[in-house]
């Protein structure tokens, strides 16, 4: 059989958090279905989607939990942070209030996830530049101060959506590779397939076993 490994060998759990209406579900939908959902109803609960991506030749399944953003559900959604390998913290670049609330979302994310959870800040609705209320530089600085990855994206045009999910995955994978994320630790948010056999393929040149038969 051919070279590509059949299947993913990791599962990463992600959560998406942020104020109501910033476009969390649309980002997820754009990422999993490559479509923009125009009349997206408010999420009342926790939805989830999956997609397989590839990082450094490794197939990784992302299991993404999209949480309700309404303030009244805040206490309830806190239950879902646990065991996330990555968190997408989303605000709306056209609504300053959603940006102002970030520190409170960040507090939750820091308190309720493990120290290795990769948090990426996403300024959504980048297509509505005319109505921009939060500058790129400002958010970039906020991200840097807090050690977050940062991207502006648009769930509508799809711009940077893929990258947002990928960047976080790369960082998580890097953490696994350099050993800072212990896969065996409870709540690492990563499941690893114990071995990924490549099929019974010869990759080294066979060496005849006996003298006299040598090549």
């Amino acid at each position, binding site marked *: 059989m*051919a070279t*590509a490994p059949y299947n993913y060998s990791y599962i990463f759990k992600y959560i998406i958090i942020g104020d109501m209406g910033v476009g969390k579900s649309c980002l997820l939908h754009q990422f999993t279905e490559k479509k923009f959902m125009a009349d997206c109803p408010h999420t009342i609960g926790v939805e*989830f989607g*999956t997609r397989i991506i590839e990082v450094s030749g490794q197939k990784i399944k992302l299991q993404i939990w999209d949480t309700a953003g309404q303030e009244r*559900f805040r206490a309830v959604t806190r*239950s879902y942070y646990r065991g996330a390998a990555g968190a997408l913290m989303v605000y709306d670049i056209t609504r300053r209030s959603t940006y102002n609330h970030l520190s409170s979302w960040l507090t939750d994310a820091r308190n309720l996830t493990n120290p290795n959870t990769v948090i990426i800040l996403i300024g959504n609705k980048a297509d509505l530049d005319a109505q921009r209320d939060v500058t790129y530089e400002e958010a970039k600085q906020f991200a840097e101060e807090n050690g977050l990855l940062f991207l502006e994206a648009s769930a509508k045009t799809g711009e940077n959506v893929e990258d947002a999910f990928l960047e976080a995955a790369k960082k998580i994978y890097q953490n696994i590779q350099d050993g800072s994320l212990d896969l065996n630790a409870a709540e690492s948010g990563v499941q690893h397939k*114990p071995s990924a*056999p490549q099929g*019974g393929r010869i990759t080294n040149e066979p060496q005849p*076993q006996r003298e006299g038969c040598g090549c």
Partner: protein
Amino acid sequence: MDQSVAVQDSLKEDENCIVAAQCQFFVNDVIESRLVSLVECKSEYGIFLFTHRRMAITKDDISLDKVVPITKDCTIEEVLSEFPVLGADMTVRITSDSVFLELQLPFSSHSQRFLDETCKACHGVDMSEDPCPQFLWLSKYLPKSALASDSEKKGAFIPTAAFKGIETEASDNKRKTGTATVNGKSQVSEETKQNIQNISDNNAVRDGKVKPEVNNDMVRSSSYTVANKAQMLAMPQFELRDNLIKCELLKREESYTFTKNYRFFVGTYNVNGQSPKESLLPWLKGGIEPPDIYLVGFQELDLSKEAFIFSDTPKEQEWSKAVYEGLHPESKYAMIKVIRLVGIMLLFYVKKELAEYISAIEAEYVGTGIMGRMGNKGAVGIRFNFHNSSLCIVNCHLAAHTEEYERRNQDFRDICSRLTFRSFDPVLPNLPIMKHETVLWFGDLNYRISDVDVEQVKKLIDERDFKTLYKYDQLKKQMEEKAVFDGFTEGELTFQPTYKYDTGSDQWDTSEKCRTPAWCDRILWKGKSVKQLQYSSHLSLKTSDHKPVSSIFEIGIKVVNEELYKKTFEEIVRSLDKMENECIPSVSLSEREFYFKDVKYMQRQVQTFTIYNDGQVPCQFQFIQKLEEPAYCKPWLTAQPCKGFVAQGAKLEIELEVFVNKTTATKLTSQEEKLEDILILHLERGKDYFVPISGNYLPSCFGSSLQALCYMREPIQDMPPEHIQQFTLMPLHPQTEPSNTLEKQLDIPKEVWMLVEHLYRNACHQADLFQQPGLRTEFEEIRDCLDTGMPDSLPGSNHSVAEALLLFLDALPEPVICYSHYHKSLDSSGSYTQCKQAISTLPQCHKNVFNYLMAFLRELLKYFMFNNLDRSTLASIFGSLLLRPPPGIKQDATQKKKVQEFIEHFISKQEDVS
């Protein structure tokens, strides 16, 4: 059952059986059941192998077979197959300098424990400071010679391996894994692993089995912790997906493969026990163009008794060398595999640059000789994948003698049914020959030319009329009758019979037997894209009484277009993802949010909604707890059913019930809590729905404190909420009223007065007062009356009013005799003076209510003739409400008695306590 008891029973006092497990043990290819156990003595460990009766209970049931001391060079590994399956048997390999054991353990906790403990013991030996464990305690279990010689030599005890056949493999295996398995640590490099997996190994081939590679990742994970247990549970998910993708890839193979022709050389030569004496190049060159693959078969490699019995022959090497030297000189070839059964040998070479496209190589043999098993006749086979095509090569030597064609047919059928190859996926059954896309079958098939005399045969040969001669060929006839090689094809025979010549010449057999020449040596094929380019014999080779036969095939091989493959693969993965997403259970709820209006004390309110399964899979739902909450909902709420199952397209009604009772009323009245909750409806493996529940609670005197009610001159529901909150949250103040009170406090709550006054006016003559229950509907009217207005007279029967009074007292967050007075009061129950003393220290409003109630009870007792009441009945009813034990304290019978006595003092006397 734990059989370690039986093992322990057989041991000496200071020896300790840590774990015992049932296993299967390979002894010379025969599988036998053993009991394997880990035994410890003075921090040294040994593995004991016992033969045993079915289920060992005492030492009489077991008998020691082998002992393996766990020395520093001892390794324990779990041997894993390519695709490990959860729940599959495990194979454990125990190796040390001179021991090689392979045990198969069933999937069980005993087995897992055996592996864990043994690994631990191995690890312990590695870590230990003690340079050489002595294993003196083991000496009594071992043959004397072994101990004497080896331990003297090496300074540490090393047991002799008592198991021939496996022993050879031990050294072989070590060579393969190189230095990797030293000291119980597994560090097989990627490279070595590949070698183990792929490169033919003559020793391994000898017994026809290539051992699966040792996968070190899994060895590590076999000592599971809680954390990686969770990972193990995730395994089936990974498994299932792999299989689905594999199936799908197979289905769509055409979309990403193209056919490319490769040149195959096939040769067969019965060498009549001779050693090579001449170059094989004329036979093996196979034309101008170098073949891509060589498949060379021999029969009668060694006719000596030794070869037959010990299956070991120098001829293997001699002929392999001769073949290697005779391969087409313009190309470099790599040997992929050799398999030999006594004199039947098959060599498999491939052009070096093509080696990487060969995979899934398996070799097997089947003996069909004497007793149907022996190896003087039979077949050897190699199966492999070349690019994306599967091929099976069989070299056989069928039964001899002209008249024995039926026997030959039988041999063929035997080989077909018994020669099967281990499947790379352990869950799949073994692969039979005919399951391969292309089968090349050759060898000394031994079919003769019959029903014609020798002279006629020789004449036809001289005339080169092979067409006529072929009519007398047994194989042709048998194939026409479909008695053998059904579905196979053979090319036209354009060469003279290959048997039997005088050795060293081109002369037909001149011996006494003067055998009729025959086409014994044949090459056949089965498969769609096989084209025979050449089929010939080679008269110039004179070593044997047979002539070698060769054929060149052009075989269409499915080659993967990597780009298309990647595309197909991704398509499959994507559709699988889509399917997976679609298979996430989904439901719709008829209502998403609920408001319970005007919830009243002790009055049920129910709302319902429907769960409709609009997903594509059945779903299991459950209301789940939120972070740091004790239950899935607040105590005043229930959901019925709170978990269940809904099939696709089915509906289920859920009932939400709000019910405020005395345990929840107080905080709702005080507005410390609200009728607010969010239920999480969780779908198994699916999303979660939040169901917000809210409502308003109408404050009630039921569940309110005496003190708060004393401040309320208006009915509670006419009070501004902030006042209710203020009064209900006010700490219970002791004796005297604080000076800054907003309003003058009532002496007793008006609600108590209304209830008692009503009973005093109407119910003194009521039979069974306080003993007959009231009506629920009347209670609700009474409650509303108390909470909303002050009509002159309460509604409902006397019994309902009486019950309302009791319910009121029961719902008081602080009983009339405060919790703080409980023990004091009980202690003073013996003396009326002390009881009075206890009462006198109650907060004023509590004291007032107590005196008021006692006066009322005394009044009631005057009418005992009518209402059937007596002191002790009243004392026990009211005692249990007025003098309640603080929460969490249980009342025993003595205490109950004291409570009753306490109250009796007061209703017997005619005075109030001031």
